[in-house]
C-alpha cells in the first residue's frame, strides 16, 4: 500500500501514470472502502492540496470550476448561486456540513454514482469535464463521461482537473430538486434538474431536464425543449412529469420501488422546471430550492 500527497499537478499525473488512484475528499473512496463496497486501492495519490484545482474562475465563454472545489464553496460562491443556481441547490443538499466541507465536485463527478447530486445540474447547465494526463488534456461531454454506475470513460491515468460551464443566456434560471425522506445525510431517491430560458413574453424559449437515480447514469430527458417551447411555465408541469416518467428506467431497491420512483421523479422534474422558470423571471428563491419551496413538505 502506498500513499502520496501530490505537491504539484505533474507529480499527481506521474503517480496516476504509474497506477495510483486519486483521492480528493475521500468521502466516497474511504467511506465506501469501510462499508466494504470496494477495497482501498493499493496505491493512492492525494490531490486535495493542489491549489490549481481549487479555483473558480471566469473564462471567455463562461466559468471554470476546479475539480477540488468543495460543495461548501459551491453553495456559497456568488457566481454559482446567481448564474448556476441548480449546482448550488445540489451542493447544498450533499450529506451534512462535514461532508460538504470535505467532498469535492471532481470527486462527485468522477465517482459517477447514478444518485450523485451535482450530475443532473451540470448536465442541464451544459458542463464539460476537463481531464488531463501525462499524455495531454482533453474535454469530455458529461453524457460521454458517465458510462454506468461508478463507471467513466476517463482512462486510469486521467485526472479530472476542472468542470467548464458555458455562460448563461439572458432570462434563464436553473434549479435542482431532490426527493428526500429526511433533511440531512440523505441520498437521492430521485432528483431532477431543470434549466429554463424565457422569451420576452414570459413563455419558455428553451430548456432542459436531467434526472438522478432513475437510470444507470444521470440522464438528460430528450425532447424537453420542444415540449416546453412557446408555453407559459405554469402550463408545462404535467407534460414534463409525463415525459420524465417515460424516460426514467428506475429500479426497485430499499429506498423505493420502481413505480414510486417513476412517479416522484416526474413530480421533482415539474417542480424543478417551475423553480427554474421563476428564477429566470427574476424571482429570488433561496438555495437549496428543496427548503425554499417545501419539497418533502419541508415548509
Amino acid at each position, binding site marked *: 500500500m502506498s500513499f502520496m500527497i501530490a505537491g504539484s499537478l505533474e507529480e499527481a499525473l506521474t503517480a496516476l501514470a504509474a497506477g495510483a488512484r486519486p483521492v480528493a475528499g475521500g468521502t466516497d473512496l474511504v467511506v465506501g472502502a469501510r462499508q466494504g463496497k470496494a477495497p482501498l486501492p493499493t496505491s493512492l495519490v492525494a490531490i486535495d492540496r493542489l491549489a490549481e484545482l481549487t479555483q473558480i474562475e471566469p473564462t471567455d465563454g463562461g466559468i471554470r470550476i476546479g475539480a477540488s472545489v468543495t460543495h461548501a464553496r459551491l453553495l456559497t460562491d456568488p457566481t454559482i448561486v446567481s448564474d448556476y443556481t441548480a449546482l448550488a441547490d445540489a451542493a447544498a443538499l450533499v450529506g*451534512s456540513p462535514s461532508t460538504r466541507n470535505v467532498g469535492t465536485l471532481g470527486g462527485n463527478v468522477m465517482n459517477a454514482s447514478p444518485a450523485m447530486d451535482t450530475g443532473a445540474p451540470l448536465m442541464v447547465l451544459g458542463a464539460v469535464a476537463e481531464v488531463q494526463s501525462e499524455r495531454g488534456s482533453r474535454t469530455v461531454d458529461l453524457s460521454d463521461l458517465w458510462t454506468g454506475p461508478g463507471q467513466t470513460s476517463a482512462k486510469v491515468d486521467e485526472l479530472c482537473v476542472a468542470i467548464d460551464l458555458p455562460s448563461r443566456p439572458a432570462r434563464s434560471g436553473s434549479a435542482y430538486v431532490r426527493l428526500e*425522506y*429526511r433533511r*440531512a*445525510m440523505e441520498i437521492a431517491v430521485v432528483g431532477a434538474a431543470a434549466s429554463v430560458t424565457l422569451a420576452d413574453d414570459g413563455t419558455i424559449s428553451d430548456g432542459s431536464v436531467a434526472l438522478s437515480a432513475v437510470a444507470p447514469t444521470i440522464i438528460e430527458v430528450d425532447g424537453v425543449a420542444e415540449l416546453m417551447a412557446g408555453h407559459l411555465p405554469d402550463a408545462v408541469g404535467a407534460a414534463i412529469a409525463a415525459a420524465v416518467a417515460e424516460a426514467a428506467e428506475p429500479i426497485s431497491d*430499499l429506498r423505493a420501488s420502481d413505480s414510486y420512483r417513476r412517479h416522484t421523479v416526474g413530480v421533482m422534474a415539474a417542480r424543478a422546471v417551475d423553480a427554474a422558470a421563476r428564477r429566470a423571471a427574476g424571482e429570488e428563491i433561496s438555495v437549496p430550492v428543496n427548503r425554499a419551496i417545501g*419539497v*418533502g*413538505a419541508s415548509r
Partner: protein
Amino acid sequence: MPLLTESKHFIRPDGPDKVTGSGRYVADISLTGMLTAKFLYAGVSHARITRLDISAARQVPGVFAVLTQEDVPERRFGSVADRTLFAKDVVRFEGEVIAAVAAVDAEAAQQGLDAVVFEYEPLPAVTDLEAAIADGAQLVHEGWADYEAADVERDGNIASFTSMIRGDVEAGMAEADHVVSSRYVSDASQPAPIEPRGVLAQWEGDRVTIWSSTQVPFQARDGVCETLDLPTNRVRVIVPHMGGGFGGKCGFHYEAHVAALARAARRPVRLVFSRQEEFIAPDRRREGMIIEITTGLRNDGTLTARRARVLLDNGAYSSDASFFPHMAAMQTLGPYKIDNIHVEASSIYTNRQPSGSVRAPTAPQACWALESHTDELAAAIGMDPVAFRQQNCVDTGETGVAGQVYDEIGLQDCIREAVSAIDYSQELDENEAIGVAVGWWPSFPGPSGAFVKIDSDGKGVITTGAQECGTGSVMTLPILAAVELGMEPEDFELVYQDTSAAPYDEGATGSQTILNNGRATVEAAQQIAVQLKSLAAEKLEASPDDIVLADGKAHVAGSPELAVSIADLAGVAAEGEMLLGKGSGTPPEYPSAVGVDCIGDRGLSGWVGPQFSCHAVKIRLDRETGVVRVLDVSAAHDSGVIINPIGASGQVEGGVLMGIGQALTERTVYSEDGAQENPAFLDYKLQTIADAPPIRVHFVEIFTPGVGPHGSKPIAEAPNVATAAAISNAITKLVGRPVAQLPMTAERVWGLMQGRGGG
C-alpha cells in the same frame, strides 16, 4: 418538598468530558500486549452445522486463540434458556457467533477467521409469524421443551404467551352500537447507539477485569459467571464512558467470549464492533408486531369491550423478551376504562435477529396501533378524538383495564396541556393536520445499592452500582445526596460503573436508576446526616433533633447563627468514626390487579408508579410524494415530581425524536430468508438534528408517594411511547385512513393515497 432550585441549572459532571472529547470509551483503552478479537458469524439464518474445523485457523501466524462452543462450558442462558455462547449444532440467525479469534491485529484476526472451515446444511428459515404458529410449522428450536424457563408459557414456536381476560367480552360486544376492527403491522427497528460496543478483558491470575460498554454491568458480570463457571468476586466489570445504548446494550453480550479468548491467549483481548456488527449481532432489536384490535362502543362514546390479538417477532432467541407479550397486552389495552377485555399476545420464534428490550419495549408499536384504532373509534361515532380520550382515559380514583384503581394521576392534565400547547384548534392549511395520542408506561422497582462518604475536607463521593447510559440519571444522584445533607451537588464526585467497587444495581434498564438507586443514595446520605447532626449537636450543645443541615452548615433550628460548617464536622469525623453511609432501601411493592385472569402472568397487570403522557404533533404532508414532515410537537408527561428539569426535558426531546424516526423512516428490512438488508446508516434512516421540530415539553408534576425519591416517577422510556401514534393520527386526518404499517414511510403514505394498502 424542598428540591434544589440549583438543580434547574445543574451541569452534569460527565458533560465536559463528553463534549470536549477527553472522555474515554472502551475503544480508547489499550493495554500492553493487547490482541484484537473478531467473530465468525453464521451468515445464514437457519442451518445445521455439518463441519466446524478450526485447526488451520489456529496455525495462522499472529493468531493466539480460536474458540468455539467446544472450548467453553455447556451452559444455556436467557429468559428462556435457549442459547449458548457460540452456536451449537444449529444456527438460528445470521448474526450467531460460530467462532472467535484473537490475534495481534485485525488483519491477522481476519486471516484466522478465513481459515475456519464452517460447513452447513441449510434448513428452511422461519420468517412469517402466522406461518410459524400454523400446524406442522418448521420449529426454530427442536428441543424447546427441554429449555429451562421459570413462569414462561411456551409451545413450539411460541416462545412466550400471555393472555389477559377480565369481565365478559361477548356481553360487552353485544351491548355495543359499533364494533370496530383494525389490523396493524409494525416492522422491526434498531436501538442504534452512536458507539458500536467494545469489550476488553484482562486476566490477572484467576481473576478477570472486563471493560465493557454495557448498560447493565452486573448482568454482564453474572452472565460471565454463569457461562464460564466463575464466582462473582473474580469477575470485575468496569464501564468507561458509554456512547448510548437505548436498550441495545442491556443484557449479557460478548463479555464472556472476550474473557474466554483472553484466558486462552494469555493476553488482554479487545473486541470493538463495526457498525454492521452492531446492527446484526446483538440480541436487541425492537420487535416487529402484528396487532389486531376489535373494540365495541356505544353512540355516547362508552367503551364496552375490547378483544385483541398480538403477535410479536421474538427472533431466534429469547434474551430478555419473554415479558414482552404481557407488556404488549397492556399497551394494546391502554390507559382507558374498559371493563370487558380479552387479549392474547404471543412472542414467536423466527430465524431473525433476537428481539430484546429497546427503550420502552413493545410500547411505541402497540401504542401506535391502539391510538390509531382509538381515532377510528372516535370517527365511528363522529366525536372529536381529543374529547373521546378525555371521556375514556383513566383519571384519579378510577379503575383501569386490569382492575387497578389509580391514586392521583395526571393523564387528563397531560391531554389538556399537550392540546393547548400545540394550539389544537388553530386554522390549518389543507396539507397540515394535528394528531394526538396518549401513552402509558410502568415503573420497575428493584434492588439497588449505593455508598456515600464525606472525607476530611467536607467533600463527598457517591459510589454507586448504577450505570449512566447517557440519560443523566447517575449524574442526578449528587442532587439527591446534596438535598439530604444541606450541601451542593457539586460537592460530590461519582464512582460508578464498577461491579467490584459498588453494590448491585440492575443497570440502565427500565428507566429505573433514580427510582431505585436514587432511593439507595438518599438512604446512604441520610445515614451521614444522622452522624453530622450528632456531631453538630455536641459542638453546638443542642439536641440532634434540633439540628438542621443547610447551606453547607449544621445549625440549630431557629438560630441560623448557631452553626458549624459541614467541612469542620467532616474534619472531626475523619479522626474517628468516619462519615460513611450505605443504602439500598426497600423497593416499592407491585399493586395487585383485581379480577384479571392471566395466563403467562409476568406480574405486569398492576403497575407501580404508572407514567402517563400525551403527545400532540402537527405535520405537513407533501401530497404528491407522501413525504410527511413533523412541524411541531407538544409532549406533556406525568412522571411525578421532576428532580432534574434539564435532564428530564432532554429525555422527552430525545424520546420524541426517536419516535419520529420510528413513525416515518426507521425500519430493518429483511430478505425472505431472514437476513437484514440495511444494516448500515446509509439505508437505516434515523432522524437527524436537521429534522428535529420544535418540541414543547410540559411536566404535570404531581407528588407521587411510594415510588421514587421526592415524589418522583421515572421518565426515560415514557417519552418514546406516543409520538408515532400521534403522527399516525395526523396522517389519517389528511389521507382518510390509517397507514396501518409502521414506519409510515413516504411510499406507504403515497400508496395509500393511490388506493393501495392501509388499514
